[in-house]
């Protein structure tokens, strides 16, 4: 079992309010990812769950028992650190066995568990080496192994992949996912990389300035972001935003600013009835913009001038000037476009997001 519940968690560092009233229920066997920019309080939250940081107020419970006052060793958790934190003076075997030795396991049992974990991670032939003789990826595996042998109730990961190069990171990400499927242990994972968050998490917690912005499944965050921050943070390239004023003409709603004038689709218009005459933020993802052709006649369209063309092979990213602002569109690799071209760009009407200009909450 490994159910973790955070109830009204706050953390103050002197006068700095680092984590603000976090409430979260993490189910047994779930893989939950905390994501956000640096300084958003995600690592602090993780460290409070680990017991490495005291809680200013609130309750953390694991499997129904409040653990606020429990020492890290008594919480039955295992943690993987960003810099691996392998003990440099011990062999790989001793690194993995350390936690079991401290807990006074039988020698036979230690041996069995270490070999089993080494087998799962494919580091069987490295057991006699010292950490400094290992590559980054191997160190990462040893750090994972050290967590696995303990059979803890919860795994905590603090940006474990951020010291690896890009290729290895993708590979380890897949392995982590497989490992979680195989072991089924509850995992709480902190990262600033939204791709890691989306691919690994059963649920993702987006944080900013110590406040939880949204909790949801990856696609939920992507399709229904709760506010402008989540919308801009999740997805790459980031969502385009345009400040527009909503007006009514001939019974339909128009959103316009200096370079843009579009008729809002009915579904979006419904939501904006109360905002006529006011400013709102229009959000549209790069992949929901297309070069307009005859099929898009009834879609909202606008004119743009191409400033930069980025060929990625599988897609083309267009940096376009729309009025005063810049928008990015991701278009088919077959599109024939050049810098300086004037284009008519269509939006997929069902994929339009609108946010309140003041509160930035989704409307």
């Amino acid at each position, binding site marked *: 079992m490994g159910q973790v519940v955070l109830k009204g968690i706050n953390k103050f560092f002197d006068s700095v309010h680092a984590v603000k009233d976090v409430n979260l229920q993490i189910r047994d066997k779930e893989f939950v990812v905390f994501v956000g920019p640096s300084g958003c309080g995600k690592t602090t939250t993780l460290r409070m769950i680990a017991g490495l940081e005291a809680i200013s107020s609130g309750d953390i419970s694991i499997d129904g028992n409040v653990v606020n006052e429990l020492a890290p*060793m008594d919480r039955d958790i295992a943690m993987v650190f960003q810099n691996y934190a392998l003990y440099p003076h011990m062999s790989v075997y001793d690194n993995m066995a350390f936690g079991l030795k401290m807990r006074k396991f039988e020698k036979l049992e230690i041996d069995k568990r270490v070999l089993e974990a080494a087998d799962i991670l494919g580091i069987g032939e490295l057991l006699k080496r010292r950490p400094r003789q290992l590559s980054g990826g191997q160190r990462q595996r040893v750090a994972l192994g050290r967590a696995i042998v303990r059979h803890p109730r919860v795994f905590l990961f603090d940006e474990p992949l951020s010291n690896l190069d890009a290729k290895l990171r993708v590979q380890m990400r897949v392995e982590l996912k497989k490992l979680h499927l195989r072991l089924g242990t509850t995992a709480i994972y902190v990262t600033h990389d939204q791709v890691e968050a989306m691919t690994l998490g059963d649920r993702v917690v987006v944080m900013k300035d110590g406040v939880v912005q949204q909790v949801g499944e990856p696609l939920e965050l992507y399709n229904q972001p709760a506010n402008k921050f989540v919308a801009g943070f999740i997805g790459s390239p980031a969502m385009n935003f345009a400040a527009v004023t909503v007006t009514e003409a001939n019974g339909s709603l128009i959103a316009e600013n200096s370079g843009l004038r579009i008729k809002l689709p009915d579904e979006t218009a419904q939501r904006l009835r109360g905002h006529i005459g006011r400013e709102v933020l229009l959000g549209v993802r790069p992949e929901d913009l297309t070069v307009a052709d005859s099929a898009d006649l009834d879609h909202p369209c606008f004119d743009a001038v191409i400033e930069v063309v980025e060929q990625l092979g599988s897609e083309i990213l267009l940096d376009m000037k729309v009025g005063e602002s810049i928008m990015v569109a991701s278009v088919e690799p077959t599109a024939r476009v050049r810098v300086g071209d004037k284009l008519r760009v269509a939006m997929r009407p069902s994929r339009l997001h609108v946010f309140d200009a003041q509160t930035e909450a989704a409307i």
Partner: protein
Amino acid sequence: MFFYVPMALFLLFLLFPFYWMVITSVRPDGELYRPWNSSNYNPFWTWKPTWDHVRYLFEETLFASWLWNTTFIALASTAISLVCGVFAGYALSRLNFPFAGSLGTGIFITYLVPQTLLFIPLAEIIRNYRLGDTPWSLILTYPTFLIPFCTWLMMGYFKAVPKELEECARIDGASRWQAMLYIVIPVAIPGILSAGIFAFTLSWNEFIYALVFLSSPEQKTVPVGVTSELIRGDVFYWGPLMAGALLGSIPVAIAYSFFVEHYVAGLTGSVKG
């Protein structure tokens, strides 16, 4: 060329006193006291090396007991200072308690108080506790400058040990004590060795406390014994003096060369996981 010529000059400059010490200690008295303007005056070399001075040192003076005294005092005061320094350094760098920072600075400031001032109140204390003329007068006073030194050095070293190592150990099931004993101290061994060598050298070479607190010849340490027993009035027994200096510097040289690898690693502080 630009590298080796200055290097050679530098080496010559550094090693010349040592060479002078060696050559003087094996030179017969007849050559040592020859006037500089005599025809066969040759200060830099001798054709008739002799062990007379070393023999004199061991047979006619208490040099052997001075060596023993110095070794015992240096080892004991180093051990005391290292134990205190390691724990104090750990506490100051890792435990968050009020005024930890100012306490660290305070300890460093005590190191800056000159020994030439400190020996006056210490002499009073030594007399009150009737420790004068015993090895304990030095074993207990050397830590007054060794502990601040070791604490300061270890504090810097512990700060360089990643905090995550300890946190990981504590999640793994170690108490703070166990995490310190099994993880932090083994990782900090190079730093501890450096501090130990420094402390050992400082107490081995210490002069003023030894001069003030010890009076009977059989209690003296090498630096004090050699200078007080081999300079009688205005007569310098150059041969035995230099032989004593040479033999007195050998243990320090051995300590340095034996630990030099750790020692260098300790000073450059490399504990990358």
